[in-house]
């Protein structure tokens, strides 16, 4: 588990229970998890301490997930290059394409099972699934 312990995941979602659900799964798998309530808070946190991976909800108030991602991709390279797993309620190809063009690396549709989340995160971090 030493490999996962060094990986830092930032979960960006306005719903506390969703963040808790992801945190619960990821911490049990040995990841370090931080949370942000919205895209602006996420950017502020990343500017202070970069993460290895972002989990981003599309449907957030104030700054929706796509706007956040586009803003992220405009930042300095150390932050702009952080891979992002986007989670959405929408399953259509149009939505997936929109996510990709906003800068998402991976796209999952809710409801996401905890072990599926951990698997995807592990893969994206380059770890054995």
């Amino acid at each position, binding site marked *: 588990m030493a490999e996962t312990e060094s990986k830092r995941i930032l979960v960006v979602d306005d719903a506390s229970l969703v963040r808790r659900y992801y945190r619960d799964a990821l911490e049990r798998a040995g990841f370090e998890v931080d949370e942000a309530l919205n895209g*602006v808070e996420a950017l502020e946190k990343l*500017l202070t301490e970069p993460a290895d991976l972002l989990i981003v909800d599309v449907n957030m108030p*104030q700054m929706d997930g796509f706007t956040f991602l586009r803003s992220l991709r405009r930042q300095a390279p150390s932050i702009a290059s952080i891979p992002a797993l986007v989670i959405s309620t929408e399953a259509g190809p149009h939505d997936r394409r929109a996510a990709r063009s906003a800068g998402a690396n991976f796209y999952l549709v809710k409801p996401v099972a905890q072990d599926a989340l951990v698997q995807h995160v592990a893969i994206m971090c380059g770890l054995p699934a």
Partner: protein
Amino acid sequence: MSEVEPVSEEELRAICEFLYRRTGMLFGEAKRYYVQRRISDRMNILGIAPFLTYFAYLRSDADGEIEKFVNAFTVNETYFYREDHQLRCLSSHLLNERVRAKRPGEALRIWSVPCATGEEPYSIAIWLLENWPEVDVQDIEIIGSDIDTQCTAAAGEGEYGARALMRLSPQLVEKYFVPAGKDRWRVVPELRQSVQFNSANITKASETRQHGIFDVIFCRNVLIYFDDASRRVAAENLFEALAPGGFICLGHTESMSRISPLFDVRRFPDAIVYQRPPAGGKGGRSDG
């Protein structure tokens, strides 16, 4: 005296999230311990036992509980060189950026609002005199404003007790203050005259407009006390009072993320500050 059981991590998160939504204050991991302490204090003082009961009490804002809770973090007694990391950021980065945007002979304008009894604007002045290389060649206007005219009157007098000066070295006290009675010091006349004090209510555009356009605004630990509507309009008024590319510094637990989308975030080695987007070009490139 009974000890209140420490709240669980989950309860702590719930209360921090509530406070963030209500005030814009962000409590990171490092600060959570102080929130824990504060909860225990308040529960002891009020004689409220289960956390959930206190949480409901806090959420209802009974008897102004939110303000009472938050007061512990804003340290109501002000003192010189408080949050000096922001002053370092000012002299190391912010002013140098702003100087490039000024026309020859144009003064840099710095606003401290609310200024309370003047410690902050005088601190800014002293800090710049001591630490900013350009201070001799660049005109600087420092304005201190507050809604409380008794405060601004006292600020104009510039008299302080020992506690307010506790973070200043004896050399600085010697240089910028003269004794004014037992354990009291007064800011030297030259410095008093170089800071202007007046009144302003930042929720009223008609009042903020009177003070002109600024390069840097310090607005620390006041937005957290406003309700959502007042906070939004105050942020708009402060935005309007900033020159394009100008900066605003909030209190160290405050985040603009809950307050207004108008500003870009800028990360400097010493502080996170917020910036009105520069005219024409793209603002908000991070330096971190």
